[in-house]
């Protein structure tokens, strides 16, 4: 097996700013690579931040979130197992559906497209988005806020597919496997499960299009599960097999992986271990200032429109309040187009800074069932659910 070292001659990597310049001059200081952001362009993707390369975990820079819809080439990438699909032939690809069902199905892409086509916009967000802000720090993908995006998905209802197969009595869970395979046989295959009642909800679809075109390979071509409102760990990519189970399905990626403390906040005192855990599920409520960007320089007495985004785990955004003085005073932002309860909502806030100085911009969203954001980050050992009110410092000259 080739190691990363052997491949170094064929490297193509664009490293950000200072690191690239230093590397070109042969003078990269010890350890600089570890802390600097690395960028690379993967197939069907624009330049994204590389967390890991094999398998790829690629993060979207915040500036891409100015758009209501995240372009396919900008959307983050997160795989678990190194053997990811790099070639799929739709002539032979089939989605198997079986287990505790009347029939076993072998659906081709043509078959999938025959089911009623459902389209909606939904935020996709990695469970570990923003993990790098946890204190004390925790191991795992060190995402900033870019493991998210807002995409219009189209596909077939899971419910329709399962009813074609015929769910038999006594069904409890449904598991989802993709084409990605473990690098060694000892590594647990990436398989996720949903309770049968969840899997047959109206809005759970198997998507074969993102933003109106087939999925990119790195985002799960030819089809992936969409569980809107829930973290993307369930949105299994490059689906190959769906199995209905008569028992709770609890292999590695359901237990002990991807669990949160079993309490209202999904949190424990920093550095401690929860007594009881449950599988991670619905997303917490979040909001971000997108423009002006962090550390932007503004001119006094020149009006700017602060804009950002807000979303929650499947409940529409009721309001977003904004502060330009580090949380001392707050006013309500106006909300942009409503693309449904799974989409993020843009918000806008006109501002005319009158005095030079440093300002801290903050936004806080509340959803239709009153869920909002804490001012301090909540902690859990795996680095999930992060949703504190963020601070965006800017300078006025």
């Amino acid at each position: 097996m080739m190691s990363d070292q052997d491949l170094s001659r064929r490297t193509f990597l664009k490293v950000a700013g200072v690191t690239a310049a230093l590397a070109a001059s042969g003078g990269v200081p010890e350890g600089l690579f570890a802390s600097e952001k690395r960028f690379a362009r993967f197939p069907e993707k624009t330049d994204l931040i590389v967390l890991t390369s094999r398998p790829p975990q690629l993060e979207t820079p915040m500036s891409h979130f100015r758009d209501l819809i995240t372009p396919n080439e900008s959307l983050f990438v997160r795989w678990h197992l190194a053997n990811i699909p790099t070639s799929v032939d739709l002539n032979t690809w089939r989605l198997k559906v079986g287990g505790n069902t009347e029939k076993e199905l072998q659906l081709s892409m043509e078959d999938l497209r025959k089911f009623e086509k459902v389209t909606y916009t939904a935020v996709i967000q990695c469970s570990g988005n923003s993990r790098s802000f946890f204190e004390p720090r925790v191991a795992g993908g060190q995402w900033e806020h870019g493991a998210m995006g807002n995409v219009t998905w189209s596909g077939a209802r899971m419910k329709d597919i399962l009813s074609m197969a015929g769910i038999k009595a006594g069904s409890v869970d449904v598991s989802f496997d993709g084409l990605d395979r473990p690098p060694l046989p000892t590594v647990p295959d990436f398989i996720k499960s949903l309770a049968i009642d969840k899997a047959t909800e109206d809005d759970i679809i198997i998507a074969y299009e993102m933003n109106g075109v087939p999925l990119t390979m790195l985002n799960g071509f030819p089809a992936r599960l969409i569980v809107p409102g829930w973290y993307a760990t369930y949105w299994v990519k490059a689906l190959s097999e769906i199995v209905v189970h008569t028992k709770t399905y609890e292999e590695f990626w359901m237990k002990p992986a991807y669990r949160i403390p079993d309490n209202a906040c999904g949190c424990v005192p920093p550095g401690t271990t929860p007594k009881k855990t449950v599988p991670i599920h619905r997303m917490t409520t979040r909001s971000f200032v997108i423009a002006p960007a962090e550390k932007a320089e503004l001119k006094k007495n020149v009006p700017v429109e602060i804009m950002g985004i807000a979303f929650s785990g499947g409940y529409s955004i009721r309001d977003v309040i904004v502060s330009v003085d580090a949380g001392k005073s707050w006013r309500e932002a106006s909300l942009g187009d409503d693309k449904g309860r799974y989409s993020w909502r843009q918000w806008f806030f006109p501002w005319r800074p009158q005095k030079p100085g440093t300002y801290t911009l903050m936004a806080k969203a509340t959803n239709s069932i009153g869920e909002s954001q804490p001012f301090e980050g909540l902690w859990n050992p795996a680095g999930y659910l992060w949703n504190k009110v963020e601070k965006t410092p800017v300078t006025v000259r």
Partner: protein
Amino acid sequence: MKSIFALVVIILAISFESVGAGDNLKTISLPQVNVELREGDGKAKTVTLCAVCHSLDYITTQPALTRAQWTGTMNKMIKVMGAPISEEDAGIITGYLTKQYGSGN
């Protein structure tokens, strides 16, 4: 000359994302990204044994972890993922990670 060749390789790598064969076959080729670990005792073993299942940036992009956290990660790789690493080598690698990528406690 060498750099022109490299550039051609890059362009091929990027453009290799087409759908061919009656639009039913889709193939991509992944770029190779180089990762250099810090110099130190145990580096060679770490490079050989930790790159079996994934790239070494899994190590370099971690925050400065405590000895307990690196030991926990090593245990996960060996006991859960089945990394074929002897106890002796595990000790050497944990020492290397704690020294080069550790928080100092």
